[in-house]
């Protein structure tokens, strides 16, 4: 088997796609999550049931949407429902297996910030805000986060908790009444982080081929723990890469 060459974004997308199982229902955020979900559906998970927050249920777009509400999502959906209905009848009711989110900042307990960098009243950078993320993070059976690794993005404590991951540790989700399991995996361009089953703190459990654990620790804004047995992501297959590239328009 020949080894293809690939970019760090490509292996991030492929790794995220692999974490989705066939027939799962998946609440898809736009951008990296949408790309990964669509890769999964075209490879090992043809029955992946994708929901976008615009109300398109079971959509099978033939190209990547630029926005969360592109026409192709409505045209190819099993059904289109109103925005209150997608949030109340589908998300809040606990029907969604996995929420697939991006983030601007994430912290050691996988709390997510998409609101502001700096102080809320006097922000350094004003970000788009919450959108559907707080309730996706609360109500999906599990959450997968996909984002690029950097010390600016992986911080000890997020400037603003837009969406709760594991709060400040064990028992916090239960205390807050959040019914899903929260983030079970954070997939980056360097590797994979998962919450420690006891402390709920994110631990490096896998690296992509050629990436050293130390490099990931350096790109992380807290003293990142490394799992005893560090997995190495299997190389992307030719098929996976060709699907990623056909979707993103890379040749």
């Amino acid at each position: 088997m020949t080894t293809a060459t690939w970019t760090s974004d490509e292996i991030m997308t492929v790794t995220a796609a692999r974490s989705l199982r066939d027939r799962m229902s998946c609440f898809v955020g736009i951008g990296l999550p949408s790309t990964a979900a669509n890769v999964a559906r075209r490879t090992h998970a043809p029955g992946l049931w994708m929901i976008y927050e615009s109300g398109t249920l079971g959509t099978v777009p033939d190209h990547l949407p630029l926005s969360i509400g592109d026409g192709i999502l409505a045209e190819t959906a099993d059904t289109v429902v109103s925005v209150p209905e997608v949030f109340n009848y589908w998300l809040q009711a606990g029907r969604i297996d996995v929420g697939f989110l991006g983030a601007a900042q994430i912290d050691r307990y996988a709390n997510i910030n998409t609101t502001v960098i700096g102080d809320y009243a006097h922000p350094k950078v004003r970000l788009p805000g919450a959108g559907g993320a707080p309730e996706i993070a609360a109500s999906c059976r599990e959450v997968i986060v996909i984002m690029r690794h950097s010390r600016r993005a992986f911080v000890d404590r997020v400037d603003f908790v837009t969406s709760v991951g594991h709060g400040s540790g064990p028992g916090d989700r239960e205390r807050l009444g959040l019914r899903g399991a929260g983030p079970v995996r954070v997939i980056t361009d360097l590797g994979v982080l998962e919450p420690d089953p006891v402390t709920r703190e994110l631990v490096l459990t896998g690296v992509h081929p050629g990436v050293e654990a130390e490099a990931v620790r350096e790109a992380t804004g807290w003293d990142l723990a490394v799992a005893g047995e560090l997995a190495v992501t299997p190389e992307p297959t030719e098929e996976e890469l060709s699907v990623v590239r056909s979707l993103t328009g890379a040749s």
Partner: protein
Amino acid sequence: MIVPLDEAVRELVHDGDTVALEGFTHLIPVAAGHEIIRQGLRDLTLVRMTPDIVYDQLIGAGCARKLVFSWGGNPGVGSLHRFRDAVTASWPVPLEIEEHSHAGMANRYVAGASGLPFAILRGYSGTDLVENNPHIKTVTCPFSGQELAAVPALNPDVTIVHAQRADRDGNVQLWGITGIQKEAVLAAERALVTVEEVVDALDPVPGQVVLPGRVVDRVSVVPGGAAPSYAHGYYERDNDAYRAWDAVGRDREAFTAWLAELTGAGAPGAPEPAGRGL
């Protein structure tokens, strides 16, 4: 009932009003937003789940004193720079913000449409939205003792939406992604709908939402009035226009030039020139 857009805006929208222009990516009432800019309306509380570039334009033009929203960005492109500039540098005027999640905003509209003073949801718990927004409280379920989030009803003075069609009695028909438009119209004191066309009869279409004429105050015929967003069955989303806005919005000078062209080229009363221009 069916009047030109400038007249409809003049009749229904006033300085200081709470105004919602809704549309979830699809059917965004862009032409109506531009008319609000042309008429120089001020001190508006702008409401919208997903403020995108037309709200960036309204904010940059100084029409708004407050924004109530849940996600503000240029979808698939990046940030709204006029919005950022107003929040972080009060340019051209300070902008107060009230921030929710989508689920919270959607349920606020539902409560507004339902004649209820508030809505309950499982939401917000543990987030920093709570301490930065006095409009997020809790209630306790009188049966189970569970604590839930409570948000107040949203009842705009005016809601503006764009739809594919209306008939001559002002019954409105839209389809495709229908988002929150029905609730936003039903929650409002007054409603203006811009449409692609007026037809004799609204032949039923799968997935349609019909807004009976008695909940619509004015209809204005504005073909292309949702561009650069799209109208399902009429025209596609102009993704290039969204990307192109980024450079204009980033720069006060470029924006000011854009604004001069919008307001100068089309004096109040003149129709949206091409119907699809940024």
